[in-house]
Structures are given as C-alpha cells and as structure tokens.
C-alpha cells in the first residue's frame, strides 16, 4: 500500500464539490414535497461563497478555541471522507486506518464543534452543545455496532476490504443482518446530520436548535467552514451507508470505464438515500427532545441484534 497523491487530490475535490450539492438537493426536494418552489440545488454553493466573502464578527469573550474549532470540524470531516471508498475500493487514506479512524475523526470534529458552541459564552450555544453531546453519546455506539456487523462478516475493520468483500451477487447483500444494521445506521445518519425527527435544520427557533444553536455565533469564513464541514460529514455518512452496505458498481481498478460506472452507481445510491431523508423529514414532526434517546435506543438495539445475528446467519 502506498499513498497516491492523484487519488487524494481527486477524492478531496469530489468530496468538497459534491457535499454542498447533496445538501442543496435535499433542501430542494423537501420544498417540492411541501408544494414550495424551494431554493435552487446550487444554493449552498452560493451561500458558501457569500460567507467566505463576508467579514467575521468574533464574540468579545471568545478564546482561541472559537477560531480553531471551524478548521478542526472541516478538516476532520474531510479526512474522514478520504478514508472511505467512494469511487474506488481503495480509499486514498485507508493506509491510516479503517472504520474506527473514521468514527474517531467524526468524534473529534463533534468535540470541537461543541467546544466552539460553548466558547462564545451564549446560552443558546451552551444548550446546543449539551444536546449535541447527549445525542452523539447515544448515536456513536449504534454507529460502531452497525459497522462492526459488516466488519465481522469480513473479518476486518478496513473499509476497503469490507467493500471488496461485498462484491458479488447483489441478492447476498439483502440478508436480515445487513437490513437491521442498515436501518440502525440510517437512524444514526438522521441524528448525526441534524435531520428531522432529531433536529430541524430549517428552524429559526433558537430554543429548539441543536446543531444550528452551536453555529449561532459564527459568521463569515468560520461559518463557511462549519457549514461545509457539516455537509461533508453528511456526505461521508451517506457514502459510508451506500458503499459499505451496497458496494455495487465500485471500481475495482482505475480504468476510466470502471470509474464512470462507479460514479454513476454512487450518484444513484446517494440520490436514493437523499430521497429517503427527504421523505422522513417531510412526513414526520420533530421528536420531543427527551424522546430522541428512544429513537437512538432503537438504532442501538437494531445494531446489537444485527451484530448478534451475524453469528447465526453469518
């Protein structure tokens, strides 16, 4: 194994460019389902550009953490993205770790996100951080167990090996073990990306916010990094869900034809996932905050059952 600078550069570009599009697509589809015209799917790019051009207002009492956190949030999501196979089975940075490293990097980003929310000293940020940590403490174990379910089948936590092992007849992928783990990870995706029924990304009510509450004090370049980081994290989790559970079409080599097929397959899988997110968001109200643990408890139990069932069905 070695590092391929070209692969790193290409996947970085793909992640950075695709992430806002996925967010925009979800927003646009959601609007369509609600009989609204909605923003263009390119709107998140314009937003990022706008934030990057704007001046920043830094809270008076903020420490270095406030300015440091956006970079950590952004880079940790990007690095995690480079560790998962997107188009080719071999992730550019798989050398540095498997699924544990991905989960760890996401946790690092979340930790600094919460610190950034606390650092400004506003009550809303503090509430957001506290809620975020509560939810992630429940979401993280469910996420690990769900991925371990697949890892046990393969005998490795290396994502590339997991993806390669999944190649073969498609019907083999639809066993009960995978289905339960998939649902568990999908619930985690909703929680981790601040979607209804856990959080409402479109609200203006500070008292109800989780993710947005931590960003309230951010502006300009920092806000751009935070927003970009959030959409990167969403793309990372969606790709993980798509490629670990349904590694169909992933390029075994780097021939243009294989890469083309792989790109189309990834796009199709992401579209389906985005549509699922949109459906859930449109048809559900947000859970009462103290009911969120119930939802994540379901995810955890499903993941546990999936893990146990590997020993029966595996």
């Amino acid at each position, binding site marked *: 194994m070695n590092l391929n600078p070209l692969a790193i550069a290409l996947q970085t570009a793909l992640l950075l460019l695709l992430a806002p599009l996925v967010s925009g697509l979800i927003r646009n589809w959601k609007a369509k389902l*609600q009989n609204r015209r909605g923003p263009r799917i390119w709107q998140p790019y314009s937003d990022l550009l706008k934030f990057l051009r704007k001046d920043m207002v830094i809270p008076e009492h903020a420490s270095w953490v406030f300015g440091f956190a956006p970079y950590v949030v952004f880079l940790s999501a990007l690095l995690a993205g480079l560790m998962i196979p997107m188009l080719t089975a071999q992730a550019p940075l798989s050398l540095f770790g498997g699924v544990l490293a991905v989960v760890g990097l996401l946790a690092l980003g979340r930790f600094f996100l919460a610190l950034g929310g606390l650092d400004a000293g506003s*009550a809303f940020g503090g509430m957001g951080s506290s809620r975020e940590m509560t939810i992630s403490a429940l979401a993280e174990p469910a996420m690990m167990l769900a991925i371990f379910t697949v890892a046990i089948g393969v005998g490795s936590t290396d994502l590339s090996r997991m993806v390669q092992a999944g190649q073969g007849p498609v019907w083999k992928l639809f066993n009960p073990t995978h289905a339960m783990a998939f649902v568990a990870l999908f619930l985690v995706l909703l929680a981790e990306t601040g979607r209804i029924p856990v959080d409402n990304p*479109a609200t203006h009510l500070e008292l109800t916010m989780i993710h947005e509450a931590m960003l309230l004090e951010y502006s300009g370049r920092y806000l751009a990094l935070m927003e970009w980081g959030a959409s990167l994290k969403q793309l990372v989790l969606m790709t993980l869900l798509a490629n670990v559970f349904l590694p169909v079409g992933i390029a075994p080599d780097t021939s243009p034809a294989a890469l083309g097929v792989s790109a189309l397959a990834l796009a199709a899988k992401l579209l389906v996932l985005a549509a699922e997110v949109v459906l859930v968001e449109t048809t559900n109200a947000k859970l009462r905050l103290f009911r969120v643990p119930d939802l994540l408890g379901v995810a955890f139990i499903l993941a546990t059952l999936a893990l146990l069932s590997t020993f029966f069905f595996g």
Partner: protein
Amino acid sequence: MSFTHVSPELQPIVEEMARRFSAGIHSVYTPHLNEVYVHARLEVIPGLCAHLYRAANARLVSLFADDARQTDGAFHLYYVLAVDAAHGFVILRAPIAPATPQFTSLVNAIPAANWQEREVQDWFGLKLVGHPNPRRCALHDDWPEVYPLRKDFNLTTELPPFQGERHKFRAVEGEGVFQVPVGPVHAGIIEPGHFLFSVAGEPVLYLQLRMFYVHKGTEKLFESLPLPHGVRLAESISGDSSFAHATAFCHAVERAVCVQAPVRARVLRSVCLELERLYNHIADIGAICTDVAFVTANMHAMRLKERILRANEHLTGNRLLRGMACLGGVRFDWDAGQQQALANLVADLKPEFASLVQLIENSSSTLDRLETTGILRPEVARDLGVVGIAGRASGFDHDLRRDFPHAAYDRVKVNVPVYHLGDVKHRLQVRVDEVRESLSLIEQFLARLPDGPIRVDIGEVPPDRVALGYVEGWRGEIFHWVRTAPGNRLARCKVKDPSLQNWPALSEAILGNIVPDFPVINKSFNLSYSGTDR
C-alpha cells in the same frame, strides 16, 4: 333604591349590592341596559369585588384609571366586572384624591388584576398599597419617573432616558441551575419581549417575562385625535386583530351616543370578524405544526390563509380588513358577486380545512409533541383570568359572541368549544372547532343578509358620556371604554386586549416543560406584543 334602566337580569344583583354596601355607594348610574356604573368609596372596592365574585360569579375584565381632576377634582379608578350569567357589566368607580394618590391592591384576592393594577401605577402615578410585586410593568425601564396618562403630561414631551438599572430579574439558585435569556429581539418578524428562563438542564423551573418594550402611548393618542381618526388608530393596536379592535372602538363610541349601526352593517361586521378569526386560526394551526417541524401541514395552512386574505381584499379592499370599519356601520357594501365569491370561499374551505385537520391528526409524531405539552390547569387559568382560546382550552366557558351578543351575533346561535385539559393540543382543538363554527356562521349570515343602509351618521358626540364597547376577537375578548369630551373628541379611551390578560399564564404553562417545547407552547397562546404594550 330601585333601578329602572337596568336589565332585569342585572337588577337583583345591583339591588343586593346597593343594600349590603349602602354606606359605601354614592350613586348608581345606568347609561345602558347591560352596563351599570356603581360610584363607590375607594375603601369598599375590595368588598364589592369580593361580593360580586362570590354572589354573582362575576369576573374582573378590566381595571383602569381616568384623570378627572379637571372636572371632578379626583382620579377615577374603574373596575369592570363581567357578570356573564346576567349578560351585563357592573363597573365600579372610585375616586382617588390627588392629595393621597394611592389605592389598595386586590391582587391577593384577584390575581388577574396584577398587570393592570401596575399599569395604573405606572401610567397615573397612583401608588399601589399591598401589592406583592409592585415593580414597574407598563413602561419600559428607560422611561424616567413620569406619569404619561395624566392630563398634565404633554403628548409631545421628549424625555431623557433613565440611566441605571431598574428592573432586576429575580435570581434563581441551585446546583446546575442557570438562566437563559431570550430576546427582547427575536429571530423572525415579531415584536420585542424578554423571556428569562431559569432551567436545570432542559426542564424549566421558572420563567420571567418582561413586556412593554414598545409602549406607543396609544391610549393617550386617542385623546388627541378626532373621533373618525380614532378608528384608524384602533386598527393599528394589534395588526392581526385590526378589525376586531376597530369594531370594539366603534361599538364603544356608538353606545356613548346611543346610536346603533344598521342591521346590515352589523351583519357585515360579524362576517368580517369571522373572516379575521378564520385567517388567524388557520395560520396558527399551521404555525403550531411548524414549531414541531411538521412543515407540510403549515404549507397547506398558508395556502388556505392566503385564499382568505385574497377574499378579504376582494370584499374590503384590504387583506387584513383595514379600512372597513367606521363609526355608525361599515364603509363598503358587498354586491351579489362579492357575496357569491365569499360563499364559494366558504364552500371550498370546508373540505380543504377538513383535509388539513386530517393531515395533522394522522401525524402521530405531531400529536405526540402537542399532547400534554404546556398544560394550563383550569384553576390556574381561572385565577389569572385567562380568556379567549387559551381560556376555553382550560375550562373557561365564555364567549362574548354568545354571552354578550354584539354586532349581529343575536341573529345566530354560537357554539362555544370548551375543553379542560389545557394543553397545546386542546388550544389547537379549540381553534379547529372555532374555524368550523366560523365557516358555519358566515354561511348563516350570508343566507339571511338583510337589506338596508350600511352606515348611519352618528353626529356630534356629546361630552361626558361613558360607554364600554366589546368584541370577541379571534384571540379573546376585546374591550374599549370611552369617556367623551367636548368638541367631538374623547377624554379617555381605555383599550383592553386579551393578550394583556393571558401573558402571565405562559409562565405557568411552561413550568415542568422542557426548553425546546417553549416555542410551540408560546405559539399555542399566540399573544400580541403590540396589543399588550399599546
């Protein structure tokens, strides 16, 4: 004493009161059948109120002062009590000598008087005695010590802001207890108000409200305006209740000159009041869903609301029904085409609204958020005098349209939904029931729309008449009390918006709930800042 001009239902009540408190009552004045003024000594007011509460099941609906030093050499304090069972108002009036500007607080017996008593203290400089919390209430903290509703305070006075700290919030202490300040400037297009939550984690221990950031001196302004302009001012008291406020004002002035609007005008007024109720209720139903992130329902509600607003414009020239009300009737008549358009709207809305309600009731995740959230217990609601939608969700079986038929509500039977659980779900349910009732009322009014003029000339208003105008607005009961002055003007106009009465209930309803449920609880009350601050 015998009282010939009182309605037969009020007569025994007034007679018994006069008998028991003969030493304390100077005189009884009855300008209207259902409106009795009892002029009494200040000392007997608590006794009179207690008697009326106990013997006649009366309730205090308004409390205000009037600077009558020029004419009577004293301030007058008014207590308006509604006797719903007798369909009448007993209004107690007590003089306060300028040499001893103070009065005794009733708040320990009648908690509903709290903010209104402090309002009298702030605006007239009449000191409250025995009030447990006599802090400033009805003026913002940067006002210096002035009494703006006294007659010797010039409307155009410019004041230097008060420097220093005046309103100290109570500290709430305990391990892990911290305070979350929200406002006064909020996200979204709403007016200012400060909410200070004391929380232990997510559960709310205590909520302190601070209103009156935008006191506009509306009541003072009425005294300087020619009467017809007063209607336009009344329209702007609370933007979402502009027709109800304007109609309450017109009602008061018409009663003062003993002129009744023609019957066609009264029917048109009633229809407009129902249209106002419709668009606000439907918007609120949607907004409650938005606050629990069920946006789909809100989008449908917005669509229905927009149809009503367009119908409003077609009928009155204004989406919010502004410019329709006028003294002595209404300004615009509706031709056959407009009536047909309204009938079509009602016919369309019925199934559309039913499907909106169906959508909400089929969403178990939405219902889960609304049920048992923000419970206002009936006994608390009664103590605080909570009125309107919020009251009716907590066992308050009153509606001025039924109990004090105004406009043309004597021509129809109004069904009043009453529930006792007092949670967000039931405040939503009251709205749903009232929307259905409003649609039915509009149909009934349209089916028997009488012919005739839509306006009478009320002429010059004679001085020194008093009258209470009342309207059941969509949010709750609205009162305008006027005293006329020479020159077709008003000496005093007291405006009572239901929001003023209901805000303190929010502090009770939030207790034991968690912080992220506050927005939906607040929305289920949907109180007006402007109507409160005036």
